[in-house]
């Protein structure tokens, strides 16, 4: 019966007034389109996975560092010439950065004086690369010593705290992100202090107070334009205005922060205006109906309601400023600055600048540090963006 029905159906299809002969074609085309879109996503995702995978496999080893347990002698002679503090045969194995710190260590803990201690000391980057199975250059004599020590468990990979407690260094095993993290924080503080109030105020004026005339339209067009300007131009502006005209100190977080603030301003203004616009007019009308002044309506009702949106935009703007390097090249923040800045007037570098510097170094040990730096920067950016989403989800008011 069924079969007969089917053949009947087929036969009658052309008689069906609703039958569209191009239907199968159209369905096919829709499916094709869907497959295209999915391929695009898959393509983009595979790039992302490849990039992240590459970063993580390259960068993970940097979170560990090799240390070696040997006898270290502390006395007047070894403080004068720190190379003598260790057995001669280890001199090409131990890190120079560790040795030159001996006088400071003794100063901090005087009880070390005139003793010989068995200590875990930092080894140099070639030995560290050997421990991590990377390419290394070690002379045979030293290699034998290292292999013996490794067999006895006297050379070990330990957590690399140096990476977070030291600034930049030309000695790879002694280099870390600390000064650039502090530099980034100070720079962003300046950016936020300047860009946030200015951006929000501008948005409030344009959205709540200004009339719609030629003048405000001109400002609006310029703000939108500003958001699209290549960031390096802001660097040139920063150099001309803040450094040359105002005489602010070069390479300082102050100049960097102000420059980045200029860059972030349009983003904050545009997103704040969108947030203000999404507050329904009925709120304002109700306020006026109760006899509030314009300022009271804006300050007590419109801004608090728009605040989650304003915050989201500002955080995204800040995250963008945090990853910016181009304008900072011009104002001198991409430099060798190992000391952490103590104030916004001192020379500082920022995290993306640090990564950029490491990427250009000849020593192999910097490859993993570059990747690890990227991992740290990315995780900070991801958490900033996540914070923006959480804030929005938590405080957003749906109308």
């Amino acid at each position, binding site marked *: 019966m069924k079969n007969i029905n089917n053949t009947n159906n087929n036969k009658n299809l052309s008689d069906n007034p609703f039958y569209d002969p191009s239907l199968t074609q159209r369905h096919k085309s829709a499916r094709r389109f869907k497959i295209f879109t999915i391929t695009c996503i898959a393509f983009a995702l595979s790039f992302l996975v490849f990039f992240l995978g590459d970063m993580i496999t390259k960068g993970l080893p940097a979170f560990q560092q090799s240390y070696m347990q040997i006898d270290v002698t502390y006395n007047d002679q070894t403080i004068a010439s720190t190379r003598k503090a260790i057995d001669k045969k280890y001199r090409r194995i131990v890190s120079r950065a560790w040795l*030159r710190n001996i006088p400071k260590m003794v100063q901090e803990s005087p009880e070390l004086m005139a003793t010989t201690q068995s200590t875990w000391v930092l080894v140099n980057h070639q030995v560290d690369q050997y421990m991590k199975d990377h390419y290394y250059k070690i002379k045979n004599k030293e290699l034998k010593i290292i292999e013996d020590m490794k067999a006895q468990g006297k050379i070990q990979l330990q957590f690399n705290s140096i990476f977070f407690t030291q600034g930049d260094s030309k000695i790879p095993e002694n280099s870390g992100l600390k000064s650039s993290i502090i530099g980034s924080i100070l720079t962003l503080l300046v950016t936020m*202090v300047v860009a946030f109030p200015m951006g929000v105020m501008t948005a409030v004026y344009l959205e709540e107070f200004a009339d719609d005339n030629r003048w405000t339209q001109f400002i609006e067009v310029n703000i939108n334009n500003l958001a699209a300007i290549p960031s390096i131009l802001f660097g040139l502006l920063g150099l001309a205005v803040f450094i040359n005209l*105002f005489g*602010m100190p070069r*390479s300082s977080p102050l100049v960097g922060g102000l420059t980045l603030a200029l860059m972030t301003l349009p983003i904050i203004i545009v997103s704040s205006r969108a947030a203000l616009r999404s507050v329904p007019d009925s709120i304002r009308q109700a306020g006026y109906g109760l006899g509030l002044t314009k300022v009271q309506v*804006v300050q007590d009702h419109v801004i608090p309601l728009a605040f989650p949106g304003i915050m989201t935009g500002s955080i995204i703007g800040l995250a963008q400023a945090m990853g910016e390097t181009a304008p900072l090249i011009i104002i001198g923040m991409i430099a*060798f600055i190992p000391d952490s800045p103590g104030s916004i*007037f001192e020379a500082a570098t920022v995290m993306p600048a640090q990564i950029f510097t490491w990427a250009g170094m*000849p020593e192999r040990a910097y490859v993993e540090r570059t990747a690890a730096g990227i991992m740290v920067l990315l995780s900070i950016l991801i958490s900033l963006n996540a914070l923006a989403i959480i804030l929005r989800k938590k405080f957003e008011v749906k109308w």
Partner: protein
Amino acid sequence: MIFKKSALSLIATSAIVVSSINMAQAREQIRIVGSSTVYPFSSSVAEEFGATSKNPTPVVESTGSGGGMKLFCKGNDLNTPDITNASRRMKSKEFKLCEKNGVTDITEAVIGFDGIAIAQNKNNKALELSKKHLLLAVAEEVPSKDGKSLVKNPYKKWNEIDSSLPDREIIIYGPPTSSGTRDAFEDMIMKGQTKKMDVYTSLYKKDKVKNKGYKKYHKVRQDGVYVPSGENDNLIVQKLSKNPAAIGIFGYSFLIQNDDKVAAAKINGVLPTPKSISSGEYPISRSLFFYTKNSHRKDVPAMDKYVELFMKEDMIGPEGILSEIGLIALPDERRTAIRASVAKYTKLTLEDLSKK
């Protein structure tokens, strides 16, 4: 209320701005700018200086030799750098600029040599090139077969230049025009030869204004055979390890760190080694310099100690710390002479610069 708040924040911002304008008169931290080639050496010394003394670590900025000179010669004001590094000698034009802005008391220090390596993938058969081969491979215009006129560079394979060279495509990854390495390469490989070759110079003699470029011809071909690869030498090394046909031009320090991936070519029969570069036997090397602004010595007291540390045998000597990261020491005699001259802060004059 809201106006009060905004006025407050405005005052706070302007207070920050104003307070920063009048910076202190004396400075503890040394400021160094200049060449990206000298940058690793200079910052190594800076780090050592910061770690072993009570002074803050000097700030070392890599601006390129030319950019460094510009900042350095801007004036005597304490906002200008104290020292500039250079991968070439100061030009007389730059000296005059300095003079014009009142920077007259300058001392020149030579710290050593930097070799420029011509390298290829390590798995290739050893390559031996002459300076002439390199010129013919990279120049935009080369002498024709009969040697009488200039033609657009026709060479696509090495064995077309010289039958003794391998049957391999010519592809060269090298520094872009903005780089000091490129300047040095053009000086030593191109200008050095073309200024002595009649094919080029006769054109210049014919019309000195129009054919000015032929006096010391140094135009690099633009047909994709020479690929400018950015300031980052690591990138060139990566390209060589992926493309066995290519050869690359980069600093010696990148060669010694990557000798598992790339191998140097012999130039005029000489491999780049510290010894051959120091003796001048290896033909493509250049001197590295730094210049001190002596008017700052009083206000930046750390400067003297930094310069002294830099010139020490532990740093620029053949066994020094800088030799580990690729600096080639000067010959002993010259090193001693320069150390003495720097210790006295000998004033640099225009005549010194015009001397070769």
